């Protein structure tokens, strides 16, 4: 069973590359999407009878549509540079969690059906038929990749396993073997408007409740506007920010920043979700359709700017893909980047001296920062490469006095995934999530021991949810994780505008 008991890995004094343990996580696989879930997103309701032919046909189609897939299938030389880079391999020792071996699950099928050598000398080049066993292996191990791109940093050809995983998931979805968690959420976005399935009235209620809470805390009327036409900024944020802890603390932080800076803003009930699980299943059409809600909301509300809240993969889709998917944004104010990250907005205000902080209000916290994979390796902030590392840290050090980075090989472009990204944040994969968090937990343990760090800030809804769940398994307090704007919220000096 996917949810059977398992042992949390021991944190070692220094990182050790595990020896290969064949089949260590072959039992892990997420629940398969049922007929209703598949139907809701337009995929076949069960494994189609001619699934093998369909899968090969789809693979051929994708090879023709994505240069990345075509080049990555051909270029790997099995050098092993990536073999010790995946957090799931480091946490489980299963060799199929080495990026090269994960890619090879598809590459060996590619070779068999699409290359001369694989057609005529399959054994020599390791080519195999797409059998039921291979498909099951795909389902298991392409759902043990969080599409975090760490392998692509180290590959001499830049081969990105995320691209291969996305292609494999797309192929599996169209032959009727979709993943329950991701596809159910995509269905919810289409039906209700957000991943958590919060209907408009419930959202309105929640926001009113937040206004009351913040009034109690600050004595000020800090608004959480919804569907306000003519607002300057449309904020697109992960729906977890409305309901989950610690996410909501950051939402309060955004509201305080807008309030303090005097920027009118609004949320949208039509586009009440920044997350875009179309990315996780590698489906361009889904990703585009989900993104289109943002364009519709922006036009409907007549806003001038679009700002995105703390969410890793959402920022990747927004930053790297929105302009292509739903642009051009010629109807927005050209003086601001589109989209703009909330951290870019806050940092810009801080740099211009428009915000003031009482840093000592965060003095009880000794802070470190976890770079979220999609922000670190698949997007940018600011106008220089690497701004995505500088800006969040600059905000933290502007609002708090105690900050220590984790080890250099575990942050910035080399950051480790939280272990729950890429559509794996589901309890049927809890064992994988706990084990995959090991490298991050080891790095965290070091700064906890050396610098008494007691707070790990991050800017991703999935990271926050994942760490809340796995921190206790490693003996840490689940309250250690929170958002950057949670820190902003604590220290920001408010006061009514004149």
């Amino acid at each position, binding site marked *: 069973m996917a949810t059977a008991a398992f042992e949390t890995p021991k944190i070692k004094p220094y990182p050790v*590359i595990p020896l290969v343990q064949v089949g260590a996580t072959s039992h892990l696989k997420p629940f398969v999407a049922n007929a209703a879930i598949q139907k809701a997103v337009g995929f076949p309701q069960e494994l189609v009878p001619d699934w093998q032919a369909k899968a090969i046909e789809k693979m051929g189609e994708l090879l023709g549509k994505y240069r990345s897939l075509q080049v990555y299938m*051909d270029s*790997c030389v099995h*050098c092993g*540079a990536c073999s010790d880079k995946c957090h799931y391999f480091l946490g489980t020792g299963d060799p199929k969690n080495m990026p090269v071996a994960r890619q090879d699950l598809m590459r060996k099928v590619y070779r068999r059906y699409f290359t001369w050598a694989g057609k005529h000398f399959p054994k*020599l080049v390791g080519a195999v038929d797409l059998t039921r066993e291979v498909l099951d292996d795909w389902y298991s191990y392409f759902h043990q990749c969080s599409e975090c791109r760490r392998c692509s940093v*180290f590959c*001499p050809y*830049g081969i990105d396993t995320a691209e291969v995983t996305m292609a494999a998931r797309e192929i599996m979805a169209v032959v009727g073997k979709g993943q329950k968690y991701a596809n159910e959420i995509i269905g919810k976005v289409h039906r209700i408007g957000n991943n958590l399935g919060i209907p408009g009235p419930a959202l309105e209620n929640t926001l009113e409740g937040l206004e009351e809470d913040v009034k109690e805390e600050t004595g000020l009327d800090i608004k959480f506007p919804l569907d306000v036409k003519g607002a300057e900024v449309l904020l697109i944020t992960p729906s977890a920010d409305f309901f989950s802890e610690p996410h909501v603390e950051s939402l309060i932080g955004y509201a305080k920043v807008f309030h303090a800076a005097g920027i009118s803003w609004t949320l949208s009930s039509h586009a009440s979700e920044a997350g875009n699980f179309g990315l996780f299943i590698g489906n361009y059409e889904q990703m585009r359709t989900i993104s289109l809600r943002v364009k519709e909301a922006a036009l409907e509300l007549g806003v001038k700017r679009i700002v995105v809240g703390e969410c890793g993969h959402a920022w990747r889709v927004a930053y790297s893909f929105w302009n292509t998917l739903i642009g051009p944004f010629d109807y927005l104010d050209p003086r601001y980047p589109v989209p703009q990250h909330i951290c870019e907005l806050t940092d810009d205000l801080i740099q211009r001296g428009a915000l003031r902080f009482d840093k000592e209000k965060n003095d009880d916290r000794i802070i470190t920062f976890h770079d979220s994979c999609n922000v670190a390796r698949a997007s*940018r902030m600011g106008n220089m490469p690497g701004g995505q590392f500088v800006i969040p840290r600059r905000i933290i050090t502007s609002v708090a006095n105690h900050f220590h980075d984790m080890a250099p090989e575990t942050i910035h472009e080399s950051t480790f995934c939280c272990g729950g990204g890429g559509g794996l944040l589901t309890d049927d994969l809890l064992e994988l999530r706990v084990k995959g968090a090991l490298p991050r937990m080891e790095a965290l343990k070091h700064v906890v021991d050396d610098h008494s760090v007691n707070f790990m800030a991050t800017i991703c809804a999935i990271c926050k949810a994942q760490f809340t769940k796995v921190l206790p398994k490693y003996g840490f307090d689940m309250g250690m994780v929170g958002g950057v704007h949670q820190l902003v919220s604590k220290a920001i000096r408010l006061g009514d505008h004149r």
Partner: protein
Amino acid sequence: MSLLSILFAVLFYAATLVLVVGVARKIRIYARTPAPLRIPTTPAPITASGVGWRMAREVVFFESLFKASKWTWIFGWSFHFGLLLVLLRHLRYFQEPVWLPVMWIQPLGTYAGFLMVFGLAGLWARRFLVDRVRYISTPSDHLMLALLLVIGASGLLMRFVVHPDIVAVKQFTLGLLTLNWQALPALPLLLLHLALVALLMLVFPISKLLHAPGLFFSPSRNQADDARETRHVAAWAAALDKKP
């Protein structure tokens, strides 16, 4: 003119044809396949010249591999750099008179053979000694290393131990270029060396040796980080916008 000489002449024409046509075909496929979304591994350069510099660092210094594994980098870079010098040195067999830079490289090029063989031996050793690399190695991975190693070793042997009549060899290679076929010295070591080189050329376009052109087309490396400024809509993706 022996049958053997004719056989080798034909073999090299065929191998060259397969290499050039095969790689050109692959490059054409890579160039024509759309890249519908911006996926550079960030932090990435934001300008085209920045991308050129990033690519140059990858191609010349193997920057990413250096980040990944120092051992693999030492062996891999030694092999490739050694091979480059050896190839440049071999240009003398195709030129009369020999270009000055090729003359200069001559002394380096002869010893680069050792560098190349050292690198290959190290890369092969990893396939046995590192359990992760052992797990991912296929028969073709081993054979490819064996092929290159025998080519390198046979070349070194001919340079330092068993000397073929290199004047005659040069007449043969120049003869291939000028379509004026000449006899090839029938030294077994030379024939082995040349046959394996031809084999390498033949398998190039159907094997992992495609990593060479592949790197230049790798979207995670060759794209500028300019997604907010520029739309990149592929033709098939643009068609979606036209649907109601």
